[in-house]
């Protein structure tokens, strides 16, 4: 067993890589929820993003188009959700669940011809620095551009919600759509935008899996990560930075427990397997104990249908 410093660097690097889809999807869903919309379709949007990205990569042989296309596909499928919940005023929970089921089915159908095609190598940045600097090299360098984007996203999201006028508008719409509407804000339009943004991020999260993390298409390859992202948003009490922490803990313990098994720790394996879920919840609950802050961050009208008075 090797626990030297350079090995820990490699370990942290792979933990970061594994938490990227969670960070992306949860950050997107966070914006959607802050505007008062509960979209349980994260898993469905991710899997659609995964197949769209992979299919476009195969067809166009261009990774840039594949990434943009996966985000667009997330936008399109979330548009269905937006239209149903915002224009036809359907129930958020039921529509979101339907979106997930729809997404999984549709992706399997679209993906029939893309099964068994090996993926393409995704370019990584600063690969020479990764090898030459011990410890910090594998942490900071040698990742894909999507990873760097994912790790700045929570901070951007935080800034957006707290410091910008548009962020204030989103929060206002999520907290009290009626007063926001009375102030002249187009609640439906704002919610549409937030839903579509969430869709784009979930699409990107899916493409990360099918293009970068495990470059291939296989049915159901998101394997429940969308649900974990959803849970992260709630346990992080709608704070982007805590979403980042939660995703890192979840990814970290998932990877660590595999290493502990490989090293041969004499701890029941079932306990180790449950550990990521357990620890993420415990840590997030502990760091979010401040009930005043929870109230401040919780979108009061989450999941409620907004009827605009005519």
């Amino acid at each position, binding site marked *: 067993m090797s626990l030297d410093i350079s090995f820990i660097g490699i370990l942290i690097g792979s933990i970061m890589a594994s938490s990227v889809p969670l960070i992306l999807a949860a950050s997107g869903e966070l914006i959607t929820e802050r505007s008062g919309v509960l979209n349980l379709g994260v898993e469905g949007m991710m899997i659609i993003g995964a197949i769209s990205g992979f299919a476009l990569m195969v067809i166009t042989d261009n990774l840039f188009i594949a990434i943009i296309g996966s985000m667009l596909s997330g936008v399109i499928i979330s548009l269905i959700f937006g239209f149903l919940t915002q224009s036809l005023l359907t129930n958020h929970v039921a529509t979101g669940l339907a979106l997930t089921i729809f997404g999984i089915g549709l992706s399997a159908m679209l993906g029939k011809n893309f099964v068994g095609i090996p993926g393409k190598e995704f370019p990584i940045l600063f690969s020479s620095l990764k090898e030459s600097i011990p410890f910090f090299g594998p942490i900071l360098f040698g990742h894909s551009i999507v990873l760097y984007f994912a790790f700045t996203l929570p901070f951007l999201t935080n800034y957006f919600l707290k410091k910008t006028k548009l962020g204030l508008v989103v929060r206002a719409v999520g907290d009290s759509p009626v007063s926001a509407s009375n102030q002249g804000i187009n609640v439906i339009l704002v919610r549409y935008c937030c839903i579509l943004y969430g869709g784009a991020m979930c699409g990107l999260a899916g493409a990360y*899996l099918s293009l970068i993390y495990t470059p291939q298409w296989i049915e159901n390859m998101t394997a429940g990560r969308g649900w974990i992202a959803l849970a992260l948003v709630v346990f992080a009490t709608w704070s982007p930075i805590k979403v980042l922490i939660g995703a890192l803990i979840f990814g970290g313990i998932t990877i660590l427990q595999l290493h502990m098994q490989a090293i041969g720790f004499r701890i029941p394996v079932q306990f180790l397997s449950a550990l990521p879920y357990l620890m993420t919840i415990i840590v997030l609950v502990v760091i979010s104990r401040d009930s005043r802050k929870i109230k401040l961050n919780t979108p009061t009208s989450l999941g409620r249908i907004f009827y605009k008075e005519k």
Partner: protein
Amino acid sequence: MYKNFFRYLISAIFLLGFSVNSNADFKVGFVYVGPTGDHGWTFQHHEGRNAVEAAGIKTTFVESVPEGADAERVIRQLAQSGHDLIFTTSFGYMDPTNKVAKDFPNVKFEHATGYKREHSNVSTYSARFYEGRTLLGHIAGKMTKTNTIGYIASFPIPEVIRGINAMTLAAQKVNPNIKTKIVWVFTWYDPGKEAEAAQALIDQGADVIMQHTDSTAPVQTAEKAGVWSFGQASDMQRFAPKSILTSIIDDWAPYYVERAIAARDGTWKQQDTWHGLKEGMVAMGPYNSAMGADLVKEVEQLQKDLASGKVHSFTGPIYDQKGNILVAEGKVADDGMLAGMSVYVKGVEGDIPK
């Protein structure tokens, strides 16, 4: 009103019974644990189904059925909707299959990799995958430089433990310093997690990776890391052309066609089938030339000997981890012992999860 209701009910029951018994629309149902596109376990069962269909028999399948309560519902529904023969293709379907079989004595059931045949209409079948594992162990023992073999295991059931043991015994024979490191992922199918497990094993010094899970993620991870790997359930060579040394291939097609025709013609009987390299239910993918001509020749000979029965994967003396003798010198393990295998042999690290 009630009189009418009962009249309808009785005629409905009559019609239902009639349609099930009619031979004209003989139908075979398949229940899969993963998606048909997993390119591993389920993919191979689906190939078997295609062969049945090609033989002119109508089939339906349900994919990605979770083991447990859902499985019983799906199997029951297939039985209710007039299927005459139902293949349930995962270990975890064992109890649901037997439960449904009790209620549908006219429907035949075939359960893969299980051992319970509680009713006369349930057969079980499996392949001697451990023979393939013996070949993998031989190759791994010769190819490893770090003397560490990484093994991604799914669930602690006899079939998985048998594979680990067969591989380790064969590897020890050619390389006494071998260590088998095992990571349990508690899933048959989660590419992300399988990739992470492979990476963890590689980081811990394993330079040969094998897996008892269903996706191609482990071989791709091995390819990226530049270590050796093996395909599982189907030929996975094109996913990792440099890294894959060979694949264990499950070929269910001949068995499925034979059983479907027997059921249609009324000659189906309960049985327990356990076929291996000899019958072709277990086959090997092409051997990677990176193994070198000598090793390829050696392994091909071993493959022949396993098929002919000259060599048995579990030939004594075999000891468990504590050093107790499991199989005496000169003896081979009988099928009963193999089917219920629940201890590691000497040389495997760690405990079996309970």
